């Protein structure tokens, strides 16, 4: 695949067009397959256009943080598998995969969607560790939204394994899974780029390469209204105040659409 010339993308956008014919505020098609990985407690394979990620949720028992002795622990990790792009390299996680993991982590953590208080086994000693591992298999842009949606779908469909206590130590029995992981809401990440004066939703890879600035916003529906729970700007140019405000409004709207897709998986 040849990266399209940045200038061409920018010209097209000026004329109100996108390379793949989408409207500026349109997402690419989303398809989700949950319970894709049977070795994981929860999993989802998600395609967003040609972008593809697999997320697995693995549970384990560990010690809580000293300042939250009766709460479970969330750990998000992202691997840019080197088959997902000719640019990805073997080696320790780089800047991009660290940002990806941290932005997805924040959308989930700050939304308070996981009922961490229900993940305590023995206060101060043993709590559930929720490992969310993101495997990026095909990078055609907007990994953040794809990964976040897959992660939330995997969490929302995850089943908790059982455990036994022997003396002082706990052992997880991965062969017996019963209850669902307790989830209180479904945070959704939505990403927009500015190219010139235009704001485009769900940037494809060539649009990310040509962009001026990127803004990712996490939203949640607390039953009463839609709220924001996280923001992350990217890109090496700025955004006007009005553009940020416009994106906030778009994030609310697009978040609703995507949340429906994830919700359908849960049910």
């Amino acid at each position, binding site marked *: *695949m040849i990266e399209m010339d940045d200038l061409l993308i920018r010209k097209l956008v000026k004329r109100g067009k996108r390379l793949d014919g989408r409207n500026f505020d349109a997402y690419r098609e989303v398809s989700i397959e949950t319970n894709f*990985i*049977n*070795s*994981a407690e929860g*999993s989802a394979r998600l395609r967003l256009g*040609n972008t*593809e990620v*697999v997320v*697995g*949720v*693995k549970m*384990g028992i560990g010690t809580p943080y000293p300042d939250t002795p009766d709460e479970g622990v969330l750990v998000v*990790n992202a*691997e840019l*598998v*080197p*088959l*997902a*792009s*000719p640019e990805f390299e*073997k080696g*320790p996680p780089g800047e991009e995969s660290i940002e990806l993991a941290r932005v997805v982590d924040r959308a989930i953590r700050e939304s308070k969607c996981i009922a961490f208080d229900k993940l305590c086994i023995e206060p101060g000693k043993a709590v559930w560790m929720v*490992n969310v*591992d993101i*495997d990026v*298999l*095909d*990078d*055609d842009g907007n990994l953040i939204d794809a990964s976040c949606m897959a992660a939330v779908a995997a969490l929302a469909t995850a089943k908790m394994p059982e455990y036994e206590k022997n003396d002082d130590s706990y052992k997880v029995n*991965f062969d017996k899974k019963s209850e669902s992981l307790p989830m209180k809401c479904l945070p959704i990440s939505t990403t927009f780029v500015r190219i010139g004066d235009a704001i485009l939703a769900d940037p494809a890879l060539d649009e990310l390469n040509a962009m001026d600035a990127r803004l990712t916003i996490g939203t949640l529906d607390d039953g009463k209204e839609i709220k924001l729970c996280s923001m992350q700007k990217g890109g090496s140019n700025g955004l006007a105040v009005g553009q940020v405000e416009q994106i906030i409004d778009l994030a609310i709207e697009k978040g609703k659409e995507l949340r429906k897709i994830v919700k359908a998986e849960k049910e």
Partner: protein
Amino acid sequence: MKESKVKDEKRVDGRDFDETRPIEAKAGILHRAQGSAMFKFGSTMAIAGVFGPRKVFPKHKEKAERAILRTDYRMAPFSTKERSRPGPSRRSTEISFVTRNAILPVIVTEDFPKTSIDVVVEVLQADASTRCCGINAAVLALADAGVPMRDLVVSCSAGKVNGKIILDIAGEEDTEGEVDMPVAWYPKRKEITLLQMDGIVTPGEAKEILHLALKGCERIYKDMQESLRSKYTIEESKGDV
């Protein structure tokens, strides 16, 4: 006392002794990789992606007379019951190494001097025979990428459980598995390109297991040729794949 999992004339999952788990394979599953494929032995699932022949970086690793083959065998953290730590382990380093040796003989490296052919294998679900599964995925991905090959390499394992010599040990058989022997086979040249074994056997049994594994390889070879024929008619006519 645990009950034996391999009973007299059938296996726990109902397979015959010389039967592999259901095989599934699909090439061309990814968009960014030049070639890609998925391969499954039952619930063991690997995907492979190929880039190259392309420029070698760092340059001092290139070879003047041929392409170099690089292989990277990886396990997704969620592919095992206990989460596995991401990043290379001593085990994955060794498997990358034997995977390279298994595949290299069929690749026409001499046609692409000063380049590298990079193969990445990602195991998404691990239920025994992950290296065999990865090799099969890698070979399909190489074909999908149009990398010239003299033949397909195919891989399958056999072993001994509870006194019986069986093909493609998996699932509950694996935990009490006495002997496991993964094999890769270069059919046109009738050469073994991967051979490893763990566990105690007599010389005669070792030979018997090897022959059974090769029987498995030959079957997979037919399946893989079939699948490529249906998808890669044009490449086929050029004679390389």
